């Protein structure tokens, strides 16, 4: 852990250097382009991002910040968008709804073209009102489908993470395939858990799967044995959990300690290395749907996403010396969806929004996006695969 701490302080220094780098390179490329273009030096396009760099959800926000910084550096080094450098401002919302709203207002005052963020559902939901009123396109990287639904009230809002419903349909197919019809459902008591619960109970009812136990727990709970005792006493053939670490890891440990035999299925909220690190050997055997990035090496070469995934992994490991996770992938998608839209539409908020809404066949990290006026997420069930944890690694299930 000392190593990680050193790494952390190293990261802080790195981040500081990067910020300086972005600032100076911004200036530099301005000058460069001015030099190249002669008198008609092209103005920078301003983009804003609101991320959970600190606080409860920082395990999501930090890889997204790192990814965005890397992408904007690469893009500017390659000449920006049609010669316009991109000026990206990242603000920390401290995993807090109020801070997120303040941050997005600050960005809009700075005249950004569009806003990326947040990483988690609560702060993303909080920002919707402001961007709707100010008519600024926003691309969230969080899970809850209510961020982009109903579409009629979410004119300016898009999102890249797979919606709960995509995850749910993968889990339901898995249960049906295995002939499991009675399940226990546990979820954390927040926006993420609630979203999962609503989507899962609706889908389970449609598919004749009976939820025999339903329990919730607080994100700060230290022991879920009381809830799991009910699961153990029930007739459940499988347990589905909607939570993120650390509570998801504690629950997994408790589950193994109680010796419950039914398979344990998690949501994509545990799709980072932190989950395995905290749960230790208890994580082995956990089944979950996840974006393809985590198992990029194991997916067949014929998969349309293969090259994009490999490219992102190479860039990220080259720069930060560790593997990217699916949260960084959501940021990658958000960034390039926006860059594509700006390329097509030019620096105009309404035109960028329209271009976003008609993005078809965009091959990203989280899947192939087909965004339409009726669907501001644009990902289907194929965007995820089922994996199982084996000896602390993710293994693709076929």
């Amino acid at each position, binding site marked *: *852990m*000392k*190593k*990680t*701490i050193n790494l*952390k302080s190293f990261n802080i220094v790195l981040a500081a250097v990067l910020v300086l780098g972005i600032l100076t390179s911004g200036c530099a490329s301005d000058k460069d382009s001015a030099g190249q273009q002669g008198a008609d030096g092209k103005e920078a396009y301003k983009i804003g991002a609101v991320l959970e760099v*600190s*606080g*409860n959800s*920082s*395990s999501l926000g930090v890889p997204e910040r790192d990814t965005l910084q890397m992408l904007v550096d690469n893009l500017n080094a390659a000449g920006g968008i049609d010669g316009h450098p991109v000026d990206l401002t990242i603000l920390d919302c401290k995993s807090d709804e109020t801070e997120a709203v303040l941050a997005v207002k600050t960005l809009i005052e700075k005249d950004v073209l569009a806003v990326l963020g947040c990483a988690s559902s609560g702060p993303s939901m909080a920002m919707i009102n402001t961007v709707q009123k100010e008519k600024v396109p926003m691309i969230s990287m969080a899970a809850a489908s209510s961020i982009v639904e109903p579409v009629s009230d979410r004119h300016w809002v898009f999102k890249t993470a797979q919606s709960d419903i995509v995850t749910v349909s993968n889990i339901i197919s898995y249960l049906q395939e295995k002939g499991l019809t009675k399940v226990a459902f546990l979820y954390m*008591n927040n926006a993420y858990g609630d979203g999962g619960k609503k989507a899962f109970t609706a889908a389970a009812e449609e598919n004749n799967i009976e939820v025999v136990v339903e*329990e*919730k*727990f*607080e994100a*700060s*709970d*230290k*022991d879920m*044995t*009381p*809830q799991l*005792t*009910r699961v*153990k*006493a029930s007739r459940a053939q499988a347990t589905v959990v909607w939570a993120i*670490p*650390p509570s998801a*890891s*504690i629950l997994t440990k408790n589950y193994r*300690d*109680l*010796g419950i035999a039914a398979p344990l299925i998690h949501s994509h909220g545990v799709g980072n290395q*932190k989950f395995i*690190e*905290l749960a*230790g050997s208890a994580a082995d055997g956990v089944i979950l749907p996840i974006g393809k990035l985590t198992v990029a090496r194991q997916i067949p070469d014929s998969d349309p996403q293969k090259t994009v995934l490999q490219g992102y992994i190479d860039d990220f490991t080259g720069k930060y010396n560790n593997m990217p996770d699916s949260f960084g992938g959501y940021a990658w998608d958000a960034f390039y969806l926006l860059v594509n839209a700006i390329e097509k539409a030019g620096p105009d908020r309404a035109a960028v929004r329209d271009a976003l809404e008609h993005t078809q066949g965009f091959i990203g990290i989280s899947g192939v996006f087909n965004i339409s006026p009726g669907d501001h997420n644009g990902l289907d069930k194929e965007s995820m695969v089922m994996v199982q944890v084996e000896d602390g690694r993710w293994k693709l299930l076929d």
Partner: protein
Amino acid sequence: MSDQLLQLLFTGLTLGSIYALIALALVTTFNLTGVLNLAQGEFVAIGALLAISIYSSGMPMPAAFAITVLLVAVLGGVLERSAIHTARRASGLTLIIITIGLAISLRGLALLAWGTETYSLPAFSGGGPLFIQGAAITPQSLWVFGLVAVTLAGLYAFFELTYWGKAVKASMINRTAARLVGINPNTVSFLAFVTSGALGAAAGIFIAPITMTTYDMGFMLGVKGFVAAIIGGLGNVGGAVLGGLLLGVLESYSAGLISSGSKDAITIIILLAVLLIKPEGIIGSFRQRKI
């Protein structure tokens, strides 16, 4: 159903032992100095985080444990000398507010040093859980029970069998009289904070494999420890343990049998009930026992 009840009991006792450890440290400091140290939870968090850092730098677990306990004990002493001692003539309320300030500063320092990440420590002994009549109990829970027993025995031996223990008791009963016969209450106050630092760190290390550790875990643990101390009767060492265990078991039963949302509400209702019906706690306060 019966093994479900037993399981909830075991879980409750584990949780309760954690609260009891914090309540013990709280009550000891309160007895010795009259100060309610609301930074006690922070000692627990910093102890756990320090031990995790030292352990993962390659030290064996016992060495990491010893070094951490020593360091946090020193931290307790330094805080007493710098913040409590210099304000020793202030009122009790002022001193309590000072400890709140200390708690916030310690939490801030922990945030700077360790960030917002969650850390975990491996369990002390391997092997799976023990099953007693179908109810599981993890080896780490047994370690925590053990620490509560050892701490309780240690405190008892110190107060009843040693010269210093008697001196401390004397200065608890009458500060002026103790000073007249040559016992320095300032030293006693210093020792109390050193002890509560060491005790907090030990508790943090023992519970880290169960609860995992974040920089801000101290606050909630401090609150629960405080409630346990109040239920047991603030100022009573045995009461603190009993209060802690009772609180843990109640939480576990209300989460398991009623609903997990009701857990904290039930805790607070019990606290209010104790304060209304038997404000001296279920065992009675130290002062009354003396009379």
